């Protein structure tokens, strides 16, 4: 019953004019009258008025003190604080996702023990508020300065025995990263699960080595669903670094508070912080766009 390879000739179907039941007039004679949307215009007008009022307020209300904003936006104190914020974000993200990837594969592993440990970790760190955790680590930093060795989370954190500031920075990064790892793990796991099982079977049937399967076949495809969520996480971590201000670390939000504590110009300085957060979040979004485009290779969407 194998089918013959020549399909029924189709050309008669493609030239359809003349076969229609009633001949419609030529297109040129017809005028299209679009549907009118009067309420849409009312809504646009109302929104425009509100928006104009808001902008007008921003510009004319002296309370915003734009001169103070301009004076502080790029002062060295603020720039250094921005740099600290970026560092916290970068290290928190890098370490957080590194741990997260390990946790994700632990949760996907065949070993019930590894699965449970990863599950327990994610459960715990998603349950504890970040600020509580940070204070905990902050206090532990002092502990470690005395203990200096024998930390349960790996050798790379042995640098705790250094002076106060390094210890605080490390504690902050650690707190952010451990918190981030729990979310990153679920994002990575979700991405890996979203890859069609057939892909792994195909790779296995070709005898492609295991690590190579993960690196070359699974992760690049998982990236498509990981990236939007990961970008969300990075952006929220970036803004979340402001929480670290409770530990008196000189990141952007803390530094702004310090400055307005001294000069009393609360609103313009909050605007300085806001502007920086918006600016850098925008930059991250642009990067996200290009990275996503890279991983969209070969896909229709």
């Amino acid at each position, binding site marked *: 019953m194998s089918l013959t390879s020549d399909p029924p000739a189709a050309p008669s179907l493609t030239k359809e004019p003349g076969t229609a039941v009633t001949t419609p007039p030529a297109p040129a004679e017809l005028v299209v009258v679009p549907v009118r949307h009067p309420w849409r215009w009312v809504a646009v007008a109302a929104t425009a008025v509100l928006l104009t009022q808001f902008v007008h307020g921003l510009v004319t209300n002296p309370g915003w003190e734009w001169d103070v904003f301009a004076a502080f936006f790029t002062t060295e104190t603020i720039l250094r604080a921005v740099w600290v914020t970026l560092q916290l974000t970068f290290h928190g993200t890098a370490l957080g996702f590194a741990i997260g990837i390990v946790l994700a594969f632990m949760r996907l592993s065949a070993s019930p023990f590894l699965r449970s440990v990863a599950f327990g970790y994610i459960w715990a760190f998603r349950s504890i508020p970040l600020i509580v955790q940070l204070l905990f680590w902050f206090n532990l930093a002092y502990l470690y300065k005395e203990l200096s060795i024998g930390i349960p989370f790996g050798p790379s954190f042995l640098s705790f025995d250094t002076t106060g500031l390094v210890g605080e920075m490390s504690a902050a990064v650690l707190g952010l990263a451990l918190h981030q790892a729990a979310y990153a793990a679920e994002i990575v796991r979700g991405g890996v699960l979203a890859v069609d099982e057939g892909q792994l079977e*195909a790779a296995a*049937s*070709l005898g*492609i080595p*295991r690590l190579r399967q993960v690196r070359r076949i699974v992760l690049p*495809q998982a990236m498509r669903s990981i990236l939007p969520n990961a970008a969300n996480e990075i952006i929220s971590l970036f803004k979340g670094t402001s929480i670290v201000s409770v530990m008196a670390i000189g990141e952007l939000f803390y530094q702004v508070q310090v400055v307005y504590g001294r000069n009393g110009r609360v609103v313009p300085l909050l605007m300085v912080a806001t502007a920086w957060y918006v600016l850098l979040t925008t930059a991250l979004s642009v990067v996200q766009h290009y990275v996503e485009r890279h991983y969209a*290779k*070969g896909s229709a969407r």
Partner: protein
Amino acid sequence: MSSVTTADPAAGSTATTTAKVEIRAVHKNFGPLHVLRGIDLDVRAGEVTVVLGPSGSGKSTLLRTINHLEKVDSGTVSVDGTLVGYRRSGNKLYELRERDVLKQRTRIGFVFQNFHLFPHLTVLDNIVEAPVSALKRPRKEAEAAARKLLERVGLADKAESYPKQLSGGQQQRVAIARALALEPGLLLFDEPTSALDPELVGEVLDVIKDLAASGTTMIVVTHEIGFAREVADTVVFMDEGRIVEQGPPAEVLDSPRHERTRAFLSKVL
């Protein structure tokens, strides 16, 4: 089908040694479901075996046990005299480590119903991936071989395309080329044309016929009776996890001995 070049001795049949397959008393359960109930099957080197049977009769599962994508519960599968997935020592069967199973699979090509091409890699990279990573072939060499294979399946101009840009028939031909890139001694096809639009079936069957003529051992699960009649050395009919009957196509297809075979054939013909 004009799009398929016929076996050209230079590009065609590589110096592949073809393998025989011996399946002995294979059982497989999925939970309470007894899917394979004692399968015995011999496939001689260089022969084409077509497996027929109703949906759910265990055809795919059987095919998947042959390259150890599915572990058997009991019984043995050997390809070219070597046990698949196990090493025998005295009376004991030792499970092979994944690395060794993967190595065994490079000798067995598998073509899936839904192609399972890697969507993020170009056609050429799809084909080159396994020879480079599993057989450690130099990339240049593997690419040259891949281009020859693409020519052989009539897709020489698609090397840089992504799978999504190809028709189903073209994708399946790439999948066949990908399996061939390892120069396997055995090729397994699981309903290679079932996911295709009817007008694309022919081009894929033509490639498989061409391969059959080149003397590679093949086991093909399919519902294409015409193909079975033309190409198969042996036709196997499966039902409810057992092989009901097997023999030359003329026997099994034209004068089946079992009622169940007759009933099935009357439905698909």
